[in-house]
């Protein structure tokens, strides 16, 4: 089949080029760090705090985003209403907006508008706290959950729900009993994406929560502070730590899910 394999060759070549490009970037990071700097950074109190904070805020933002985003996605997938096209586009805005602008607008909203001020003063202190980090991450991450969940919901034949109702379920029961479990994998994929986006979020976070050490310092902010310090090597070391933590978590989640899937098949 030699004369036919040009396609295989070319497409694998394209893939390799991009992979190599990424690997070179990663290598640029790795080769510029001494083991000592890496070790010291990893076990410094500040970075340990940043790791913990990053994991916690990203997870909370993802959970909140899932709780709000999944029903919202369902509404977009199943119901027709006027201006649905526009709503669809609005949902995507946080993806298009540069995080810097997002964070800035969030800051104006919470610090300078009546409604926003009311929230910060009476309900929950958002500015310059880790809660601000969560709000910023939630904002940029939720569209990913909505978009992914929506396309999964659209893939699930509505008949499953109708049949569940035919078998005596109320609508919300058929949603919880049937749609959610069937959409599970898609929702999780969206949540993983959202989580990855959250943990890497920097611009909006820095604006809304500030770059305060041991308080609102997530890993990307730690990188920023080290760059600001001019401590290149440490910045790279923290970058690498970020890379390792994020990748590790994603690999673990994915393999846990895979094991779950295989069990299903037994």
């Amino acid at each position, binding site marked *: 089949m030699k004369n036919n394999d040009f396609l295989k060759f070319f497409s694998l070549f394209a893939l390799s080029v991009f992979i190599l490009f990424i690997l070179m970037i990663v290598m640029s990071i790795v080769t510029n760090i001494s083991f000592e700097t890496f070790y010291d950074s990893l076990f410094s109190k500040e970075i340990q705090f940043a790791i*913990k904070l990053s994991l916690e805020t990203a997870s909370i933002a993802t959970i909140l985003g899932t709780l709000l985003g999944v029903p919202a996605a369902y509404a977009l997938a199943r119901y027709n209403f006027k201006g649905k096209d526009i709503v669809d586009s609005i949902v995507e805005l946080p993806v298009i907006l540069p995080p810097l602008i997002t964070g800035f607008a969030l800051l104006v909203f919470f610090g300078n508008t009546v409604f926003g001020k009311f929230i910060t003063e009476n309900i929950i202190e958002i500015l310059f706290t880790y809660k601000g980090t969560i709000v910023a991450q939630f904002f940029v991450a939720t569209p990913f959950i909505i978009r992914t969940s929506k396309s999964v919901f659209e893939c699930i034949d509505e008949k499953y729900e109708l049949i569940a109702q035919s078998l005596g379920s109320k609508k919300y029961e058929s949603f919880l009993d049937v749609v959610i479990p069937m959409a599970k994998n898609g929702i999780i994929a969206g949540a993983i994406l959202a989580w990855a986006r959250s943990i890497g979020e920097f611009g909006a976070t820095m604006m809304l929560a500030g770059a305060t050490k041991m308080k609102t310092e997530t890993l990307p902010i730690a990188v920023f*502070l080290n760059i*600001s310090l001019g401590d290149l090597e440490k910045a790279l070391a923290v970058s690498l730590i970020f890379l390792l933590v994020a990748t590790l978590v994603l690999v673990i989640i994915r393999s846990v899910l895979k094991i779950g899937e295989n069990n299903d098949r037994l």
Partner: protein
Amino acid sequence: VDNTGAEQQEVLHAYVGAGMQMPMDEIAVEFEKKYGIKVEYDYSGSGALLSKIVASNQGDIFMPGDCSYVYQLEDKEMIKECSNVTKHIPVIAVQKGNPKNITGLSDLGQNGLELALGDDSISLGKLFKKILAKAETKGLNITKAVDTNTVVTGATVKQVLLYVTEKNVDAAVVWKADAYENPDRVDIVPIESEYNIVKTVPISILSTTENYENSKLFYDFVNNEGKEIFEKHGFVALE
């Protein structure tokens, strides 16, 4: 997450130019030792901090890299008190070993030299424009040549410096304190004093402060004990 410890501990929120992390972190430790008041720094570029203050209407202390930012807030009546702490001295940062043999401002016009400068929107960029203008009045006409040599302008001082440490350019104009933090990667070439203009780093109490007494304590602490710490980190304290 919020492990501030004692719940009622008093906390100050201070916006500080990201270039002053080293001395200011040390000051916070000393200050807390002495008064038991915690200071939280929000580090960023001075302009970003300024925008943040206006946008959020919150905070106690503002310490940008340059007085002009404080003046802008004064116009908005957001400054309660202000004083200068240290000098910010522009210098030329060159690659370690000074391979292009740059000795001063005049060498920045050399043919083929690659130069990184601060953008006009940050204080360093604005200041350097003024320095070049001052040099013109003293007979050193290199504005055009410098313009040609400028391959990149950065949006933060650190970014500008980074291009030197990463050997992307031959030289950059940065604050002395920034260059000082990278002794193994850059050499510092001073700008001749006849041309140079020195900036002062101010500290100010914001009118949005909700705890004036504590703010004032910190303000005074930086102005006294703080100066010594700044000198330790390559700043030149004001008398």
